[in-house]
């Protein structure tokens, strides 16, 4: 197991040709995923047609495979099963050991990530693959693991979706005759309904419907092209791009990882402190990494390392479950409290009118959300102490952490660059009254400096910024101006006048209904889509009711990030897959996690209600 990786083995790995030029920070992260495996004579290491999940690096021993011409090929060095890291779904060759030996096992996905930044490693993987397969045996690449049933289910889903889309569009055209809407408003409703159907049935990637809507608005002359494209020319678009770039920088410079390791070294080795460390790491990274998935990618290796150090008995399962819950809540609990805590916040920020954007940018957002954050913290600690009340003890060796820190070496220029970028951002935001620069351009300025100084390379800029998400944001934030320009906002507000009166006179009930609808919708809809659809529906109500749209946006964002099952959140799914892949699925208690998630929903709702007097005090309500 990786916890037993000793310095000599690490030295061996570093001395290996394949890893001699790989970035130290990548090896440092990879250590947490790799396992040493002893192989006996005649043992079949990989079998042709089996799912290709792992890649093996030969440390010692001889392995044989059959070539297509009937001859056998011997292999002493390099990788085995390299096709797994090159995108293959199944192994193309059977390899067995002829003598007792030793290999290092790497999860293919993790090795592929490292290879993405280390071209020589990619070349070696390819060479290892061709060593054993040339001449080709015509095994075709298969798409990534999807069972036939899953395919059938998707086909049915697709079919239903594509049939539903024109039906809904036709119904809207038919019924809109009685709604006294102008032609452009009807057209836009049809476009939005088509986009919503594409999202609900997952007919296309999530960023495609906003682009489709943008195209339709321009081609059908629903609104001026300048309005349809206003999202791409707004400061918010460039702010999102810059924030993602700075986040990518922090994520990939190794700074966040180093801080994690330092935390592990500084904190006492006990169950409570490790739990706190996992949680605090997620919370601290919420300040600097605008992606829950990115934060999870940073914390999960440490979590996996901790879980691997435990067994699957009831006592250890309990502790592992506690660690998982700490990690998940650390990653997401305060994501709505900080404006750049997650991309959905930025999407809704982009959908605000200019006045609301200015009133709730960065520190103002934090100020308005601070009380909710404090309530969440208190309730979270209470719930956590109730659910995970135990006297069980836990500790692990710090040997691996020490090895990792040693590998990272002194703080690199890139890490210093990240520190400088974060400092510049923090000071810049605080000093707005002094420098009078808009925060959008301040963030862009920092990103440009990172790029021009070479701290953030063009390859990383391309690879680590979620460009489809940026396209999504650019296209979606034009929805509100489009609706305004064609009179749809007023029309919706007029028709939902009873709802807006309800929102004014019985706000607590309205919020309760909104929370319930969001929790139910999230069972079938992904976060981004739910956020956009609920914002589109509730912002006109807010306007008509004389309530700032920030309140509704905040409630939507807070409730959307709550989930019950792992499939509802990508970062949660990401962790679950990693645990399954590391064969740790039996080392924690899934039911307890679901119970914890339900509690998290309850404390979110409670935090919203408890914040109402505070918002009244701030004149937000």
């Amino acid at each position, binding site marked *: 197991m990786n916890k037993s990786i000793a310095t000599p083995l690490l030295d061996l790995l570093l001395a290996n040709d394949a890893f001699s030029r790989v970035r130290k920070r990548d090896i440092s992260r990879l250590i947490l995923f790799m396992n040493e495996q002893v192989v006996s004579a005649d043992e079949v290491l990989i079998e042709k047609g089996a799912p290709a999940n792992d890649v093996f690096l030969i440390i010692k021993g001889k392995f044989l495979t059959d070539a297509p011409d009937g001859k056998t090929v011997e292999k002493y060095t390099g990788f085995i099963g390299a096709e797994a890291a090159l995108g293959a779904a199944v192994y193309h060759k059977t390899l067995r050991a002829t003598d007792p030996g030793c290999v290092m096992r790497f999860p293919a996905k993790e090795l592929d990530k490292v290879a993405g930044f280390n071209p020589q490693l990619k070349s070696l993987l390819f060479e290892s693959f061709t060593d054993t397969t040339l001449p080709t045996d015509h095994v075709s690449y298969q798409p990534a693991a999807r069972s036939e049933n899953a395919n059938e289910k998707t086909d049915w889903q697709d079919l239903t979706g594509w049939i539903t889309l024109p039906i809904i569009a036709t119904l809207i055209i038919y019924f809109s005759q009685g709604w006294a809407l102008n032609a452009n408003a009807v057209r836009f409703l049809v476009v939005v309904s088509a986009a919503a159907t594409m999202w609900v049935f997952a007919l296309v990637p999530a960023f495609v419907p906003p682009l489709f809507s943008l195209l339709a608005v321009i081609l059908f002359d629903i609104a001026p092209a300048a309005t349809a494209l206003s999202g791409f020319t707004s400061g918010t678009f460039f702010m999102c791009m810059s924030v993602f770039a700075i986040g990518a920088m922090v994520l990939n410079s190794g700074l966040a990882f180093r801080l994690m390791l330092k935390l592990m070294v500084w904190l006492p080795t006990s169950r409570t402190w490790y739990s706190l460390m996992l949680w605090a790491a997620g919370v601290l990274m919420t300040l600097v990494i605008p992606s829950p998935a990115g934060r999870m990618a940073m914390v999960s290796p440490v979590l996996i390392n901790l879980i691997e150090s435990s067994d699957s008995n009831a006592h250890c399962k309990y502790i592992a479950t506690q660690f998982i819950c700490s990690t998940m809540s650390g990653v997401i609990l305060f994501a709505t409290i900080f404006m750049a805590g997650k991309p959905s916040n930025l999407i809704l920020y982009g959908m605000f009118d200019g*006045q609301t954007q200015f009133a709730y940018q960065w520190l*103002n957002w934090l100020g308005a959300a601070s009380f909710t954050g404090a309530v969440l913290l208190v309730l979270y600690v209470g719930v956590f102490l109730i659910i995970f009340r135990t006297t069980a003890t836990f500790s692990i060796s710090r040997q691996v952490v020490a090895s990792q820190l040693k590998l990272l070496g002194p703080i690199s220029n890139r890490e210093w660059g990240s520190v400088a970028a974060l400092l510049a951002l923090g000071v810049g935001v605080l000093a707005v009254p002094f*420098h*009078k*620069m808009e925060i959008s351009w301040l963030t862009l*300025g920092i990103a440009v400096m990172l790029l021009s100084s070479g701290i953030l390379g063009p390859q990383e800029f391309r690879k680590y910024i979620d460009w489809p998400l940026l396209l999504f944001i650019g296209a979606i934030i034009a929805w509100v101006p489009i609706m305004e320009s064609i009179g749809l906002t007023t029309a919706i507000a007029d028709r939902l006048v009873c709802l807006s*009166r309800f929102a004014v006179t019985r706000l607590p009930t309205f919020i309760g209904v909104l929370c319930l609808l969001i929790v139910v919708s999230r069972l079938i809809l992904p976060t981004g889509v739910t956020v956009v659809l609920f914002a589109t529906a509730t912002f006109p109500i807010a306007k008509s009711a*004389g309530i700032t749209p920030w309140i509704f946006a905040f409630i939507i964002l807070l409730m959307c990030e709550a989930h019950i099952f792992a499939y509802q959140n990508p970062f949660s799914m990401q962790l679950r897959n990693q645990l399954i892949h590391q064969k740790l699925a039996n080392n924690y208690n899934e039911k307890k996690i679901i119970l914890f998630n339900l509690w998290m929903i309850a404390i979110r709702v409670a935090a919203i209600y408890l914040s109402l007097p505070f918002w009244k005090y701030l004149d937000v309500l």
Partner: protein
Amino acid sequence: MKKKIIIAIKTLLVIVLTAFVVVHKSRTPRILVIHSYNIDYAWVRDINLGLKRVFDKHYDITFRFHYMDLKNHIGEDFQRRAQEAAHKLIQSWQPDVLILFDDLAQKLVGTQYVKQNEPIQVIFGGVSHSHEDYGYDGKDNVTGILERKPLQAIKAILERIAFARGFDLNGPGTKPKVAFLGTRSYSINAEIGIYNTFDWSPLIWVAPTQVETYEQWLDSVKLLSRSADILLVSNYRKLSLKSGGNKLASSKEVMAATQQTFKRHGGRLPVVGMNYFNVEDGGALAVGTSPYEQGDIAAKMAIRVAREKMLAGQIDIVQSKQFIVAIRKKELDLWEIQLPPVYEAFARATDNYWD
């Protein structure tokens, strides 16, 4: 060594560039425009057109617009929140010049910033009250443009339509009676005295009526249709559906019902709006203060104050001079009234003519 030199040069460049940006931004004038109402109100939309005609030539000045939305939401609680939001914005954005439009913005915001030794210079526009009502007189950081109804122009057009409908204005015959109906809004309260003292002759001025609710409005229209020949209306956007309630009647519904009721109960001439956008609501004819002039003058004053770093009080307060005529031909035809072509041409030129 070379790398260290390169890093040092890059760091120095970043510092110098940042310093340049900070210095440049600190010298860039900032003008904040605060409207009492929202952009969906035609008056506000057209004031902004007037402002932008001037602002567009000054891209090196930073502008920001803020809408208090006090026409759509009339509750005291909303007013307090809108006031607080405006103050927060001023405190955080720190404008050099503050442009405040309409009376409520003066009452809720202007009074806080118009004082001696205040660094923020204030320009007002769309003010129906006297500027003394807000304590602006004698203060050196304020100037602006007062909004006064173009009563002379209104009188001229009333005479014209009365003549068209057979009234003998110069002879011994019965002269048309003119009545005014409005709400008890803050701005109408300020103007009503001016209407009463204006010389409407040869027209006969009937004592004006002010109401609060939509129901009272329609009842008054019925009464006035019997006592007056011409009905002048203004500022009906704050008519509540119920007494003391916050829900407002739709402006289009009010105008449609007013015209129908007035005609049905014996009104002899069309209802005439005292705001040009009354025709946008469905009215037949309106004469009102020009919003473009309000925006244009306020913008020019603000630019001058910002550029020349002068005190706003050094510029004299002015009164509105321009007016707008708006015509809805279909409605006017119902009264068989032909106006001189110059009116139609004027309405068309300002995009206020509806076929």
